[in-house]
């Protein structure tokens, strides 16, 4: 029962990184060039999906609160600066994308676009640090509270944050090669390939820093799984790069999507059966079972929420289906 909910939590957070990830990637790419028409076209490519993407985060945190209350408080409060950074980024992006085209003046729109760029950067960086924070263990005391927040500031957390920034940038660029009009998509292909290459470098660097870190080595319960999934992640990025070279943007986007979902699986599988590993008191480490809500609550959520899951995913799929294909002259521009 706990495992099913843990998997569902992972599904929604990974879904958020994949879907929100290309929002942020497209957001980061607004920094390049000053051509307002290009920026508007890039946002039109995200267009109908934007509102449905960010709510995967809302759902993930809802599951976190409902099914893993013990984890919710300690994880969020214990990673306060990282979560606050990510949250600031999420807010800036959501407001920026939806409001940037409401003023008429080009100057105001350019200002909002800078807000989106900064927001995308903060969101990717923040979530990267949160994931790294889990992987390197937290100072969880016998009283069940995480002591302080300075434990977050490590080279590994910085490297992971940076790696996630490059990952979303590569993912966003790949999304645009898939979704923008064919000519524009072709023009973006070299950039996407370069970004994927830099993501490979950044992920490798974060992995090396992680392997060198005592805390990460101590916290990892299944180091082999962790390394294996990292190799898989890099493999996905290589595949994406190769697919772009062969003009298969659909395959490339699938591969970068896998690359964005894998970090969640990696953290979950490497720490299993724990979810918060204590760096100061081994007995204080929190297992998934301990973190879960009591059986009655999980049963209730199972009865009320799970039957609706097909509807949730179905309506999302309906959105993807209706607005499938490249944007063209008939696509509505609103953001």
């Amino acid at each position, binding site marked *: 029962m706990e495992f099913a909910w843990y998997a569902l939590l992972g599904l929604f957070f990974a879904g958020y990184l994949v879907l929100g990830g290309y929002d942020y990637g497209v957001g980061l790419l607004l920094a390049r060039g000053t051509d307002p028409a290009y920026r508007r076209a890039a946002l039109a490519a995200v267009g109908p999906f934007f509102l449905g993407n960010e709510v995967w985060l809302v759902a993930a945190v809802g599951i976190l*609160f409902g099914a893993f209350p013990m984890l919710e408080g300690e994880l*969020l409060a214990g990673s306060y600066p990282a*979560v606050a950074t990510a*949250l*600031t980024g999420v807010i800036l992006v959501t407001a920026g994308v939806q409001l940037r085209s409401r003023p008429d003046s080009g100057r105001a729109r350019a200002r909002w676009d800078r807000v989106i760029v900064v927001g995308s950067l903060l969101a990717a960086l923040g979530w990267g640090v949160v994931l790294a924070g889990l992987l390197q263990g937290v100072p969880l005391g016998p009283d069940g509270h995480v002591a302080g927040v300075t434990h977050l500031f490590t080279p590994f957390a910085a490297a992971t944050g940076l790696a996630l920034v490059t990952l979303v940038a590569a993912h966003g660029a790949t999304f645009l090669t898939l979704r923008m009009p064919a000519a524009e998509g072709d023009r973006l292909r070299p950039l996407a390939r370069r970004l994927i290459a830099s993501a490979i470098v950044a992920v490798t660097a974060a992995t090396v820093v992680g392997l060198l870190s005592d805390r990460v080595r101590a916290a990892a319960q299944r180091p082999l799984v962790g390394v294996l999934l990292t190799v898989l992640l890099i493999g996905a990025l290589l595949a994406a790069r190769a697919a772009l070279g062969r003009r298969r943007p659909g395959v490339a986007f699938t591969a970068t999507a896998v690359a964005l979902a894998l970090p969640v699986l990696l953290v979950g599988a490497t720490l299993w059966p724990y979810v918060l590993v204590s760096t100061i008191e081994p007995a204080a480490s929190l297992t998934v079972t301990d973190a879960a*809500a009591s059986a009655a*609550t999980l049963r209730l959520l199972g009865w009320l929420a799970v039957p609706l899951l097909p509807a949730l995913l179905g309506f999302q799929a309906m959105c993807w289906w209706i607005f499938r294909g490249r944007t*063209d*002259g008939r696509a509505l521009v609103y953001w």
Partner: protein
Amino acid sequence: MDTLLLARLQFAATASVHFLFVAVTLGLVTLLVGLQTAWVVTGNPRYERLTRFWGQLYVINYVLGIATGIVMEFQFGLNWSGLSRYVGNVFGAPLAIETLVAFFLESTFLGMWIFGWHRLRRGVHLALLYGVMLTAYASAFWIMVANSWLQNPVGYEVRDGVAHLTDFSALLSNPALWMALGHVVSAALLTGGLLMAAISAWHLSRRTPDHALFRTSLRLGLVTAALAISLVQGFGFAQFGPVGALQPTKFDGNPEADALIADWTARFGAGDYLPPVLANVGLGFMILIGFALGLLWLLVPLLWRDWIIRLRFPLWLIMLSLPLPFVALILGWIAREVGRQPWVAYGLLPVEQAVSPISPWLMATSLIGFTLLLGTLAVTNWVLLARHAARGAADPALGRPPAQPPADDDTRPEPAFA
């Protein structure tokens, strides 16, 4: 500095701003459903223009509802980790359901609705707006279930200091829930209706060329607001009985309150178990505003033969009354939320046990940072709303037909996944 005070201030600030926007969202979407249904049923293009104009304002307003909502959701974990630790088993369930079955679907539907103009069949497009409305009401319902549980914890038992769910149906039949839900929902309708009436009145007072259009929305908004204020008053006064019985300390001193405080002092130790005076002062003002807005009924007969427009001064009265429901919304929440101090969950979890054990400096930074961020965004959002409201219904961006399609209509590329 005191971490607890800072955390309370931050929650009060976020929740207040959040409520100003979601009340408009809930009220306006209801009216919008009426307008679009009228368009689909009658085929009258005036209703299409009305749907686009009010839809655009709705969508702009929605942005801050989401932004503040996400911050609130995270704030439970960031600032109130004790809340999830001690009562998360019970309180977390309705919140989780709200995010999954309401918030998630609402945004998905809205995204399709905004981009579905000229693309989806009219019936499907309308159905999406119905979906947005139903999930918005579902959202209000589950949030009120969660909030009512904090007001009056039911259906749980405490084992090892942690509350466990025993009876979920008790959460749904919580006596603190239904009257409050009716009160809040009708307050949202009042706010949405009055906003619609006031913006229409502004255009009519300036002799807009879109006279027929704004005449329609003035009538719709005013009648909705008048009906809603009576509901607000009814549900509001109906709450005094149950709330007074459930929370004796909320209103002025009485024997039950003294007995309860003696009981708490025995169980939780000595402390100040009375809420700050602020809560009741606000309540008084809110009731005054409620009575004042009841006078909206006096304007309804003036709809006959458009006297309301011809006389002009009623239009000004409507415009001047626009801030009132917003002020009342805040005061109402202060009465409900500050009135249960010093408890997070009344008689079960004191606020000082629920606040996260983090440094006051971190909390202060968070308070200042997020309040400035959301405050700036809220003001910007209102400026944009005002500008778009003032611009009129000539050509809102929402539902604007896409650029002319290429001459050969079949050049649309194949889906890239195929």
